[in-house]
């Protein structure tokens, strides 16, 4: 069985089924600029992501069901978002404010949040990363940025699936001749040499800074 097939079968339900059947990442993009919304939407769609674009932090919270309106506990089930990308400088609620609100939510705090900004200000970047932002992208955002993010998120989803996959397959396949495990694909081995996007640690923070 090819590694790709094994992974696809074990991807958790968190990834939405698109009409074509392929598992899709759902990204919520937040930006007050009309031009930037159009561009980020296209960047994400061309990267095969499902996209929801909103113009403000307030709208983003409304979409997620975090706006304080009395909603039933189905809040999480009704909206499945795998990644939030938000502009930093927005009137009213900044991207930083939005980040804080999301990280304060027990329901949504696990969703990776990426901050986008046209300004390369180290203190701003630090603040965001310390508040739990997954990454900080300098605008204009490029296709390579989106692809890298998507790979990172997908790997995160795969890690969850891999745990289940390995437990299942190892118990089935006891033949000594099979030295390679279905999960030992190059995709998973690259996890150890992952780039900037790894759990936050002092060394990771400094590598993110140096990359910028």
């Amino acid at each position: 069985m090819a590694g790709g097939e094994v992974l696809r079968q074990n991807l958790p339900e968190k990834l939405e089924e698109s009409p074509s059947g392929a598992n899709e990442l759902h990204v919520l993009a937040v930006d007050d600029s009309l031009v930037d919304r159009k561009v980020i939407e296209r960047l994400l769609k061309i990267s095969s992501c499902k996209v929801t674009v909103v113009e403000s932090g307030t709208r983003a919270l409304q979409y997620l069901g975090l706006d304080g309106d009395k909603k039933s506990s189905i809040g999480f089930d009704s909206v499945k978002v795998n990644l939030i990308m938000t502009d930093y400088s927005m009137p009213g609620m900044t991207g930083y404010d939005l980040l804080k609100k999301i990280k304060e939510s027990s329901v949504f705090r696990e969703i990776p949040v990426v901050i986008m900004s046209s300004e390369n200000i180290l203190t701003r970047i630090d603040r965001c990363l310390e508040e739990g932002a997954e990454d900080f992208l300098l605008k204009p955002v490029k296709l390579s940025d989106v692809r890298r993010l998507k790979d990172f998120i997908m790997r995160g989803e795969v890690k969850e699936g891999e745990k289940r996959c390995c437990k299942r397959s190892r118990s089935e396949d006891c033949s000594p001749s099979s030295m390679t495990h279905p999960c030992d694909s190059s995709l998973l081995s690259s996890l150890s040499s992952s780039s900037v996007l790894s759990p936050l640690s002092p060394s990771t923070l400094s590598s993110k800074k140096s990359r910028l």
Partner: protein
Amino acid sequence: MDKVRLQREAAFIRSSLLDQGYLDEQFIQLEELQDNDNPNFVEEVVTLFYTDSARLIYNIDQALLSNPTDFTKLDDYMHQFKGSCSSIGAKKVKNECNGFGEYCEVQNYDGCFRTFQQIKQEYITLKKKLETYFQLLKEAAQIK
């Protein structure tokens, strides 16, 4: 006018804009987002830029006419405008914006005013060149 000639003219305008620094790699990035399903993406973004930024330009003009001058507002509008320029790869216009920001910071009204006239000039120059460029592409596409 034959198709190849029109395409060549369009390509020439495009290279000049890139070589002379009117446009930068971001414009090329936008081109990479274009495909058969979205064949006019770049033109759509550029059109959106010009319609949307017209509002910002008006706001800046008005703010420059107000007394006393609200430099915070000016800086804010300019920040938005500059961001949009950056998003379409409008390099020259974007660079002029930096000068404006500096004058804003030291609350130099004359500097702001003069720089803004230059910004508007570059903005209009680019608009005309891009209009010609997209028009040529359109005409070429209509020929079998």
